[in-house]
């Protein structure tokens, strides 16, 4: 893997140190104001600090001890700082990744082409301008030679080159980029290893993948996602409710003969409002993008990541995703009256010059199963290449006319030579097709020799992955150009839920629209230009980085590894993101129960000593109780930062089982944890003799 994909430890000092500094800088009110929950805490901190100053400067009777007010003030400030810290760490981790990329971009120079197509070179006048890569605009043409770095995202319009994309994808093997077709897109920052290409730049400065990636992971360009906004509203609403509950408590207490001090009321308020989730919410969002990037998927927006968690239907291309790219020969079936050796011999002859993977797999099969070694035929045999018209290939050697190809094509050939294809063989060919294979027929002149069974090899472990998806409630649909029989057989073998056979871009598009019409969210991967409309229509469209520019623009994610099975991980990251928010919200609200039992008796016990039984934790003193709750409230943010950054583990269980689990851990756990935590802090405070 490339350096950028290195797993940064959660406590990496290179991130923690600047994050600490950052978390104090973020105390600026205009920055905190973006997060209303934390803003309330900051106002509370300022208020408590002011009261402490007043108490120190002009002491009066009836006030809380100054050490108490100071301690509350400090821990309230810590609450804000800890929340800032969570955000800073999340941003820092993203920045660390972006930094490598940014460094790479800075020094690139571009050889911009002046005229295209080049006129006859006038000696002494160059057709190129050397300009910094950052000044390239959309539509500019640049020349890149071997050993040079491609200055910006673009499209190869002339030439073919091998390109090292490891900086972006982490994959060390070079890839081929050529003009035209589906492999024309190049990414800025990657390096040409051989040959020379001319690239048309397709993005304006500041809009390249690198720029977008940097902006997104650093959190600068981050916009709140729809679901985050909804949660935000819930948190703000709860904050307002508790603000009122605490403010109105002052006159109610006054009626009861209790003068509540501002620090105590502020402490109660801060403990009740959802500071835990409020403080970690933006860190969770940033970390989600970051996790996706770690998997080498670049999301164009947080909205897309969220949508990935909601996906109901996955459209997966058969080739490369469900099956290994190529069909392989698995057996040879001689026609009645033909010896196996005879068929094997002919099959080998017909395949020796066939450089397609299928052809090579036949040679390999014959060598392994039938001990038929390769032989030198060059010069003595006349090879007939495959053509779309004849749908056959083969060779003429001596008086033999060996042919192999599609069953009907070879059948016609045999007939034209005066022979006949045995009826049994027709049946066998059907059977092979039914089982998901492709039958190839072999003939020698008028003699039909037999069949070769070519099989699509389903990737190992894919059936288990689909089972996981089924458990999540996601339906998988295989897209293939095969005929329905073959498609059905592969679908059966791979465990995919459904398939679309003989797919064309139009039928694919129609399938997406149909699914969406049923109210489902559809995800798909694609790479070719003809995938672009479908990628744009799908709710989550993951374009392969090797794909065309059109495909990349149409999708809302780009997989830098160009691995179609990545879609599965994308979905998990999306789900994780929502689950982390949900569980921490539940935890945050459940915490309030214990905090009430800590703070309320402490507030009233002076006037109503009969309330002592409500102090179920048997906290040492009222001051200790309030302080312990505030300290717990601040520390829990720090303790939960790793969870917020890593995300709650996603398990492919049904929704009900998942919910039961989360409720048990974060709901019930959220009620119990603070009882224990506050008691421990209280014991600690008592042990150091503070209270």
């Amino acid at each position, binding site marked *: 893997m490339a350096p950028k994909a290195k797993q940064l430890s959660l406590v990496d000092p290179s991130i923690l140190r600047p994050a600490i500094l950052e978390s104090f800088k973020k105390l600026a009110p205009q920055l905190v104001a973006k997060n209303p929950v934390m803003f309330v805490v900051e106002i509370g901190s300022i208020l408590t600090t002011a009261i402490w100053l007043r108490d120190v400067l002009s002491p009066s009777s009836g006030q809380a001890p100054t050490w108490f007010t100071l301690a509350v003030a400090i821990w309230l400030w810590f609450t804000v700082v800890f929340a800032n810290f969570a955000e800073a760490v999340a941003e820092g981790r993203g920045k660390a990744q972006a930094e490598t990329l940014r460094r790479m971009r800075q020094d690139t120079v571009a050889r911009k082409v002046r005229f295209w197509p080049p006129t006859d070179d006038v000696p002494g006048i160059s057709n190129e301008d050397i300009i910094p890569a950052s000044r390239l605009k959309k539509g500019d043409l640049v020349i890149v030679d071997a050993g040079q770095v491609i200055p910006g995202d673009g499209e190869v319009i002339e030439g073919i080159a091998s390109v090292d994309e490891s900086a972006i994808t982490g994959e060390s093997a070079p890839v081929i980029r050529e003009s035209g077709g589906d492999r024309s897109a190049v990414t800025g920052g990657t390096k040409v290893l051989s040959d020379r290409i001319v690239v048309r730049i397709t993005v304006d400065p500041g809009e390249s993948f690198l720029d977008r990636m940097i902006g997104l992971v650093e959190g600068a360009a981050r916009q709140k996602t*729809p*679901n985050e*906004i*909804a*949660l935000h*509203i*819930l948190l*703000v*609403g709860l904050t*307002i*409710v*508790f603000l*009122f*509950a*605490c403010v*109105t*408590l*002052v*006159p*109610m207490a*006054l*009626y*009861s003969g209790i003068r509540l001090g501002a620090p105590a009321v502020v402490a*109660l308020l801060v403990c*009740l409002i959802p500071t835990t989730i409020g403080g970690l919410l933006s860190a969770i969002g940033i970390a989600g993008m970051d996790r996706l990037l770690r998997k080498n998927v670049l999301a164009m927006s947080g909205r897309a990541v*969220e949508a990935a*968690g*909601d996906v*109901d239907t996955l459209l997966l291309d058969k080739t490369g995703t469900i099956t290994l790219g190529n069909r392989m020969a698995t057996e040879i079936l001689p026609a009645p009256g033909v010896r196996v050796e005879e068929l094997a011999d002919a099959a080998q002859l017909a395949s020796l010059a066939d450089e397609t993977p299928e052809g090579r797999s036949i040679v390999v099969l014959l060598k392994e199963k039938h001990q038929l070694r390769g032989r030198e035929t060059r010069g003595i045999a006349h090879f007939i290449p495959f053509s779309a018209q004849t749908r056959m290939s083969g060779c003429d050697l001596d008086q033999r006319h060996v042919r192999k190809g599609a069953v009907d094509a070879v059948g016609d050939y045999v007939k034209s030579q005066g022979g006949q294809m045995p009826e049994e063989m027709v049946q066998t060919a059907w059977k092979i097709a039914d089982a998901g294979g492709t039958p190839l027929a072999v003939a020698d002149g008028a003699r039909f020799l037999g069949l070769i069974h070519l099989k699509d090899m389903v990737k190992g472990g894919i059936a288990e992955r689909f089972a996981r998806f*089924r*458990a*999540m*409630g*996601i339906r998988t649909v295989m897209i293939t150009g095969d005929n329905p029989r073959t498609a059905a057989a592969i679908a059966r073998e791979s465990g995919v839920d459904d398939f679309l056979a003989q797919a064309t871009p139009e039928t694919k598009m129609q399938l997406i629209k149909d699914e969406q019409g049923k*109210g*489902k969210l559809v995800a798909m991967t694609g790479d070719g230009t003809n995938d672009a409309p479908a990628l744009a229509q799908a709710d989550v469209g993951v374009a392969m980085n090797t794909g065309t520019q059109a495909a990349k623009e149409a999708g809302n994610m780009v997989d830098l590894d160009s691995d179609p099975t990545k879609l599965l991980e994308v979905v998990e990251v*999306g*789900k994780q993101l*929502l*689950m982390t928010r*949900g569980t921490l*919200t539940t935890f945050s*609200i459940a915490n*309030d*129960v214990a905090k*009430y039992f800590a703070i*309320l008796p402490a507030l*009233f016990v002076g006037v*109503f000593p*009969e*309330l002592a039984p*409500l102090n179920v934790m048997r906290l040492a003193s009222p001051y200790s109780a309030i302080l312990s709750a505030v300290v717990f409230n601040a520390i829990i943010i720090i303790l939960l930062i790793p969870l917020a950054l890593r995300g709650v583990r996603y398990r492919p269980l049904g*929704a*009900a089982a*998942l*919910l039961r689990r*989360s*409720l048990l851990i*974060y*709901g019930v756990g959220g009620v119990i944890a603070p009882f224990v935590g506050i008691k421990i802090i209280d014991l600690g405070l008592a042990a150091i003799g503070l209270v």
Partner: protein
Amino acid sequence: MTAIGWVQIVLFFAVVLALTKPLGAYMFRVFEGERQPLPRVFGRIERFTYRLCGVDPAQGQTWPVYAFSLLAFSFLGVLVTYGIERLQHVLPLNPQHLAAVEPALAFNTAASFTTNTNWQAYVPETTVSYLTQMAGLAWHNFTSAAAGIAVALVIARGLTRKAGPLAGKTIGNFWVDLVRSTIYVLLPISFFYALFLVSQGVLQNLLPYREVTTLEGVKQVLAMGPVASQEAIKMLGTNGGGFFNANSAHPFENPTPLSNFVQMVSIFAIPSALTWTYGRMARDQRQGWALWAAMAVLCIAGVVTLYWAEAHDNPALHGLAQLQQGCGNFEGKETRFGLSASALFATVTTDASCGAVNAMHDSFTPLGGLVPLLNIQLGEVIFGGVGAGMYGMLIFVVLTVFIAGLMVGRTPEYLGKKIEAREMKLAMLYVLIFPLLILSFTAWALVVPYGVSSLNNAGPHGLSEILYAFSSGAGNNGSAFAGLNANTPFYNLALAADMLVGRFLMMIPAIAMAGSMVDKKVTPAGPGTFPTNGSLFVGLLVSVVLIVGALTFFPALSLGPVVEHFAAGAGRVF
């Protein structure tokens, strides 16, 4: 606590449960069916009403139009009732020659009946004429109940309707919902119900008050009036405004244990049946039963606590040797009903925002009094007022689904419809208004002399009384901790505002929610969607209702009933 007491409670739930499906199915036919029942009788009246009012029943309304119709209708209702009260001395059917009702009180009463609260700052026997009772107040008992059902219907439509080209953004027609509720449901049931009450001994006449000599030789004036006709809709429409000041504790309003039992059942009948109607609208009865179960769990918890608290000694009197308290806390209860039926009645009436009482809540033990108070503060969603409980509970459902939905890793969706920022905004608005009203008014009343001077009790119980009054107002319940003299300009106006805001400002987000959900795309349910019709959801819904309610009011409650309980146990009285 006695076996016969428990039998009454179990029997009550059994009867309510048995009524749920038939009444719910009937209401589904009335409101959502292709053809309404009894077209010859009801259909004629219905069509005649539409013609008379110029209503096109086929015309759907969008949510703003629906909300405006409801508000305009209610506003007009306030004006008419206010007018009748102010002019009753010159209007007929006033055999006692009662004077015009004072302006502040008249406004309070008009607001109270329009909002289905039936908070009574007045003493009916000496304040309002028969005409005011019948035309000014009972009229609202029908229409405010019908308006509540209407809002429940629109939010149910919003959540359950599959977006189609025909439906669009319309959520029904307020006038149609109002007329159908009244003609098909409320009027016919009330008619037979009133006859039953008369059979039990409830009065129904227009006679002047009668002076009688009692067995002890004392002269006593017995108030008369058209009680039974009013009593039926008072219970059925969860209105709760008594014809007499003593409400359902009065022997002419609620004479027998049987009438008491039927009155309790009639409070829950429509709210309970609406859950079935809802399940039918959602094309999944279990969705409706899940709501029913959540409501029942909360209700049973309340009854058991209240019955338990009242069956024990008053903690303040505990340990006094000369007192025999084996019978429990009987202060303020009618012996013809007993502890069990009083505890059940108090729970049912506060669960359902009815507000009729057959015992004095003010005389309950501190923990016994906490139950009705908390029932109201949970938002009147435990069955709740007719319709009001339904839409309140559905808002809580939306909140629950949101929190739980996140935890399963999907954008939260309910019945296949996504819950997004706009719905959260409306749900939070609904949830916010309620505590804001109660807490601010209570805090205000507690620190000003014109607020505290109305109290008959000092200390925590006084706080409970004021807290109860504003909770009852905002929750549109109408029952009271009666130790508070609420007929003062401050309380009349503050409580009127409390009731109006608590009714209409909460209805608007609910109607808007319907509008925002109605045309959302429906995602078919799969194993990845979180089921909202199972016991797990019921448990979760109950927790959310409890947490939102309890967490908000716990500080205030701890200075009221909670302190009172602990202090009384320690022998301290105020």
